[in-house]
């Protein structure tokens, strides 16, 4: 790990004023320190934000929740209000990482974790995300874990988070603060597709800090399911994951949310597919049609074509489980 300067501000405004392109905010550090050990990231300055007052889960006036950016993944997954009102989010968080890492990792940091593409992580290899313009060895190399949707010529990496797949389905809002002031970003707009700038994972400016994640009131308590498919039974990143949520009137679908993990540079949603399910009855036929439509633009690489069929089957299973009831 390279040497760096360290500061620990106690106010958000101080943290923001210290930030620049060569600094990083650190909270849990579970991904950042790993990247620094691998020389993938070499910041001059770490700004420890664990002293900032961003640790509460509060109810909002409209019946939603505001989650402070520093709430740990474990505390969030097991928070009574999350378990009661947003069990899909609990389930997704508990599907990720290990208990130790969930105790350390923060809510804000979960959104900012970098891809686990082998080539991004190997500083001896070219990588457009790490060194723009250097090339993408994953496209012609080992790409079993890579994207089948929304990739570009420059980058085929996937976003590794489970929590973010649920947050996408729940239409969370990301609250950020920078030197130019505060703004709120719809979850669907927060992360980027790689296009021709894969070095940028999301919309944040260098001086912007995530302060909170807001959940709208709809928690899909009665009908939801998070399905994660991976190479071992626990403690592995998703090959494919599905967050499915339904609001039913009898067996008619009133509302539906569907988000995929492990298949793209960001949690993948397609509102046209969700719209096509609204008003239709719960049936395997309708779920299969939705699953096919969700993957209609998929483009496989040499080793990951299996993800397309896997994702389609996972969507059908997750929707079917959600229709029967909740999780657990």
């Amino acid at each position, binding site marked *: *790990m*390279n*040497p*760096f*300067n*360290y500061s620990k501000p106690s106010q958000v405004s101080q943290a923001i004023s210290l930030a620049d392109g060569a600094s990083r905010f*650190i909270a849990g*550090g*579970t991904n950042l*320190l*790993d990247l*620094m*050990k691998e020389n993938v990231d070499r910041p001059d300055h*770490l700004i*420890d934000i*664990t002293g900032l007052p961003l640790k509460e889960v509060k109810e909002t006036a409209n019946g939603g929740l505001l989650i402070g950016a520093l709430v740990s993944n*474990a505390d969030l997954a*097991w928070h009574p209000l999350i378990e009661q009102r947003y069990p899909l989010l609990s389930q997704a968080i508990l599907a990720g*990482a*290990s*208990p*130790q*890492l969930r*105790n*350390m990792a923060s809510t804000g940091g979960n959104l900012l974790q970098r891809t686990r593409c082998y080539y991004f992580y190997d500083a001896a290899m070219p990588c457009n995300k790490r060194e723009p313009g250097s090339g993408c060895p994953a496209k012609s190399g080992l790409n079993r874990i890579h994207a089948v949707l929304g990739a570009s010529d420059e980058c085929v990496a996937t976003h590794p988070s489970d929590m973010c797949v649920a947050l996408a389905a729940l239409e969370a809002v990301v609250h950020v603060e920078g030197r130019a002031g505060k703004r709120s970003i719809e979850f669907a707009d927060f992360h980027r597709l790689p296009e021709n700038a894969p070095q940028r994972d999301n919309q944040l400016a260098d001086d912007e800090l995530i302060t909170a994640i807001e959940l709208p009131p709809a928690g899909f308590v009665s009908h939801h399911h998070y399905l994660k498919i991976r190479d071992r*039974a*626990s*403690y592995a990143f998703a090959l494919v994951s599905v967050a499915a949520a339904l609001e039913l009137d009898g067996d008619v679908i009133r509302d539906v949310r569907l988000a995929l993990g492990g298949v793209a540079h960001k949690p993948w949603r397609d509102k046209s597919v969700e719209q096509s399910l609204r008003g239709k009855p719960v049936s395997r036929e309708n779920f299969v049609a939705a699953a096919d439509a969700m993957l209609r633009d998929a483009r496989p690489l040499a080793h990951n074509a299996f993800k397309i069929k896997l994702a389609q089957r996972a969507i059908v299973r997750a929707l079917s489980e959600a229709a029967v009831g909740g999780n657990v």
Partner: protein
Amino acid sequence: MSATNQKDFAEHAIALTLNGQPRQLQVQPWVTLLDVLREQLDLVGTKKGCDHGQCGACTVLRDGKRINACLTLAIMCDGADLTTIEGLADGDVLHPMQQAFIKHDAFQCGYCTPGQICSAVGLANEGRAGNADEIKELMSGNLCRCGAYSNILAAVEEALPQSASKEGGRQP
């Protein structure tokens, strides 16, 4: 970066509680808790396995919660209450989880054992594991390359009810 240049980066004073004792330390910002424990304090029970948060050999308890010491900066432990494997026993009386690991022969080479035991005590504090399947899932952050899992499971299952720390423990 040369050693000379490293001197430009300030050392910081931190104060913490380690295995019940107050400690004052001078640390460079980039030193991990794991390296401070092993290299500066000679507490070599906490093991360095992967050094990337993937194996759990470095698991310690911070304020009763299990964490990976390899992905924790020592400087960020200012004010923390830390417990390592050296701090679990009460004098010569082993912690119930240590006793159960011996009883069930829950190791072969022993390298992962301190992390397994600290993790299991953290598991007890969480109070979320009510059966063998839940123990297996919630111990998945600790790898054992000898494959002693069946005996580790038996030890954890037996000692879990007696293993929560006095403060913060909660039964399922």
